[in-house]
């Protein structure tokens, strides 16, 4: 019996898991991220300079690829002609292939397991690439930027990790943002 139902059970479980995961992403929030991300790159100075295009690496697990596509769609809607004469290009990279993001200016981290996340963060620290995570709890792991969801929505910046990477953020960006402090908590 187990052998008969096994393929179906596997399919159902995988389907339900992937659908369940995808549903936990707030599309409005994702849209906000899509607006923020290219501007964060423009408002920062980092090792990987913008040449002709803005390169964003979307790092996700397989079940979040559809969310990543949504993100790309939102970005295209928000910046149909790019921004500031730069075209916005995306690299869809699975966590296991995170090393392929080395030439991008930013890595957008979707949800994943702790091990993969640590590996991705470690990679970004080595390559001094700015990271944005959908979940702001990941700031504690060393992610650079997320969104603070309080009375108002604000950029949430892990200033220490940003500075450790030698990245300089625009003052105006810092002004509107909430700064995360991993020692004293957020302020």
């Amino acid at each position, binding site marked *: 019996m187990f052998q008969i139902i096994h393929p179906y059970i596997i399919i159902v479980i995988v389907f339900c898991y992937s659908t369940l995961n995808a549903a936990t992403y707030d599309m409005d929030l994702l849209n906000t991220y899509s607006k*923020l991300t290219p*501007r964060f790159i423009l408002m920062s100075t980092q090792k990987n300079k913008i040449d002709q295009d803005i390169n964003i690496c979307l790092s996700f697990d397989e079940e979040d690829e559809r969310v990543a596509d949504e993100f790309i769609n939102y970005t295209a809607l928000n910046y149909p002609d790019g921004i500031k004469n730069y075209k916005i290009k995306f690299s869809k990279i699975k966590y296991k292939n995170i090393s392929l993001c080395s030439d991008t200016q930013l890595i957008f981290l979707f949800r994943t397991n702790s091990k993969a996340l640590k590996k991705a963060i470690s990679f970004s620290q080595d390559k001094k690439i700015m990271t944005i995570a959908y979940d702001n709890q990941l700031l504690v792991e060393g992610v650079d930027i997320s969104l603070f969801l309080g*009375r108002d*929505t604000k*950029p949430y910046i892990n200033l220490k990790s940003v500075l450790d990477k030698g990245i300089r953020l625009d003052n*105006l960006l810092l002004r*509107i943002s909430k700064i995360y402090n991993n020692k004293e908590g957020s302020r």
Partner: protein
Amino acid sequence: MTRSIEFKMIVSIVLFTLFTFGLERYQMSLSIKKQFIDFKKSKNELLINTITPVLGLNFSLGLDSANKEYLEEIQAQNKDLEFVSLVDTNNNTIYIHNTKELPKLEDKYEYNYWVKDIVDEYTKEKLATLELRFSNLELENMRKSNLEITTNIALITIVLLVFFIIFTKLIFKSLNELRDSVLKYDPKKNNFPLDLSNNKDEVTLMRNAIISMVNKITAYTEILDNTNSLLEEKVKQRTLELEKSNLELKKLASVDPLTKLYNRRHFTNSSEHILEISKRNKTPLSMIMMDIDNFKYVNDTYGHQFGDKVIVSVASTLMETIRKSDVVCRFGGEEFIVLLPQTDLDGAYAIAEKIRKKIEKTELTLNEKVISITVSVGVAELNILEDNSIENIINRADSHMYTAKQSGKNRTCISA
């Protein structure tokens, strides 16, 4: 209208002070207003230039709700921000705040009114319009503060002016005392009431100088008074001496120096007066005229000195014989006249005879030789109806004396 220097000085200083004070406060007020406007314009401009990029970035990032919170913070931090309005391009009001009724916009307060478009930094797309209106709260506060300062300075100025006026009055009080003392000063009474002072200010130095001058005037006045007294005494003495001399001269002018009898001039003057009195009172008046007999012979024989002795002897006899009311004078060389008031012809004749006999009996000695003298006498009486002057009587008496001479001398002849 003449005003005192004190009044002019006080008015000048008060007006100058008030004018300077008013000018200074006016300029200060203008300066404060200009500085305030510059500051306010700069501050408002800085604020809006700070706000708009933040609002623009929030719009760009899709964080519209953050703008509301941000503007509330801005509103709380800027008490003079009366009106804030943020309207997007679809005319949807994202944020509006109005503390009170909007003030009427005036050109002079244009720095308080700002409207600015919110533009995306990268796409240059207009995202919204921000309108801000500020109040002049700080200006009003500064004006109130300035008014308080002005009031305090005005009070201090008034107090200082009052002190100045009192001080000036004190200075001029001393001058006024000096003036009154000088006006009341009488050098003879030496009544200058002020004393020398040791102060070294100009007024006291002038006062001391005047006191010194007054003391000198008093001293010189005393010297002058003493000199005047001496002069007056000398003048009085000289006057007395002059009067005495005058009397002597007068006497010498009316008296014959040899016989001490009245001379002819005095007789002429006084006889007319006696004549008038007799005519008015209708009283008798007689005259005796006598001449020493052979007087030329006596002179030639015994010398002039003896002649003078004869004359003096006759004069002495006359003075001894006549009454006090009678007037006797030496009328010529050896002629004598006696005027007899209130005496008729008979009385005059009797007196004439008495005189003649007395002279006849008189013996004069010269070198142990006894010499006798005689006189011829004419007597006349006043005729009240006919005689207008003494000359008429003299002529008649002289005529009778001549008759006596012609009749043998040493006798008395009278007229009818």
